[in-house]
């Protein structure tokens, strides 16, 4: 069904249920849907499983969601950062579960969910602790780990521009996980800098077709400070 345009971020995240799996786009600050995360904190859903590359920085965004006690489990590639103290404390206190997934396998598992692939054999991680307990098969003389899809109930992503049908384009490396997560969740919410009339995005350049996008909201102007933190 075609995308609806929400008046506010609160409207855009309405209805997210306790216990949901929420895919959260972004890599560092680039592509991080700050408005939607803030709205999710206000919305109040708890016992969430959050799937994202990291587990939050400083006191904002995912870290704030974690600090508010809404997250039961984090599935990510790289929780440990110089300023990931919120997650670190919760994890050490046994109050947040963690599943570490190699970054590319994380992306590929979400792609599989979006692409109707039941499982796939992946060479990454074979022979390492991250393959423990997983099925391994030798294909063409190389060990492969069987990986299953990660499907979200909701995806919260950030894009550069949308048209009113929900077609999205991104900007530079802020593209990162957005296009993949948009395919992998039941309800996809995108915050965008700009919403333009249909026909104003060149069909050759659409990165996420509107079919994947359920709700759009204009992002609030926000001055991001770029940090070199990993």
């Amino acid at each position, binding site marked *: 069904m075609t995308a609806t345009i929400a008046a506010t971020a609160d409207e855009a995240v309405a209805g997210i249920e306790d216990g949901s799996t929420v895919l959260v786009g972004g*890599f*560092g*600050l*680039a*592509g991080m849907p700050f408005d939607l995360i803030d709205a999710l904190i206000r919305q109040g859903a708890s016992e969430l499983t959050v799937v994202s590359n990291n587990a939050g920085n400083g006191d904002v965004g995912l870290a704030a969601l974690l600090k508010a006690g809404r997250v039961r489990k984090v599935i990510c*590639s*790289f*929780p*440990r950062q110089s300023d990931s103290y919120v*997650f*670190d404390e919760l*994890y*050490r206190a046994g109050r947040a579960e*963690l599943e*570490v*997934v*190699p*970054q*590319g*396998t*994380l*992306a*590929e598992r*979400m*792609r599989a969910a979006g692409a109707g692939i039941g499982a796939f054999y*992946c*060479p*990454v*991680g*074979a*022979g*390492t*602790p*991250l393959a423990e307990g997983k099925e391994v098969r030798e294909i063409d003389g190389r*060990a492969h780990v069987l990986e299953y899809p990660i499907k979200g109930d909701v995806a919260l992503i950030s894009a*550069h521009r949308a048209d009113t049908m929900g077609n999205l384009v*991104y*900007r*530079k*490396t*802020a*593209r*990162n*996980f*957005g*296009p*993949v997560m948009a395919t992998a969740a039941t309800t996809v919410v995108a915050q965008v800098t700009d919403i333009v009339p249909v026909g104003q995005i060149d069909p050759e350049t659409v*990165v996420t077709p509107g079919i994947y996008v359920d709700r759009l909201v204009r992002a609030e102007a926000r001055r*991001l400070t*770029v*940090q*070199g*933190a*990993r």
Partner: protein
Amino acid sequence: MTTTNTTPGTGPVEHTDRGPLTTDELAARIARDIPAGSYVNLGIGQPTRIAEHLPPDAGIVLHTENGMLGMGPAAVGDEVDPDLTNAGKVPVTELPGAAYFHHADSFAMMRGGHLDVCVLGAFQVSHHGDLANWHTGDPDAIPAVGGAMDLAVGARQVLVMMKLFTRDGAPKLVPACTYPLTGTACVSLVYTDHGVFAPGPDGVRVLETYGTTVARLRERLFVDLLP
């Protein structure tokens, strides 16, 4: 791909007229082995410094796994753009001929063997080329892997850039990694301050030494250095 200037069969070149390589010299040494026209991923940390030593006219294209080919140098001043960073989340620039893509496409590119070279840091490399660079094994450490395992498996040539010994003097080129593995038998060449090594199924071949000799390295390492 010519990965070293050492002609096979002539044995290791022992540079005894000098000390071990500085980090900067090591970066330059690795840069020298990267063929013109290669597609290269430079891992977070020290390998990033290799970029400064690549000849601008060699047409080497840098990949950053967060979704870009044609990455330029670090951004300064007004160039800084929150939407354009490298895998270390450092603001970078874009070179002509760049391309952006999403994470699944980026790691497909890597896993599919399309990158010619990646250079990674390491805690340990085994004599068969196993790599440990993501986890110290400290039970108190929070595990975090990022793209390390994907890179270790994907690039056609995985080069390691590391010091040969820890601060405590323990060798990092070892018979078997004691740290948790990143990948098995994946390292092609190990570039260190004291020498360049080629691990393999039969053991380690020494290609060059700096400020030391193969004989002296034999005394300090617990791996078989092939004759």
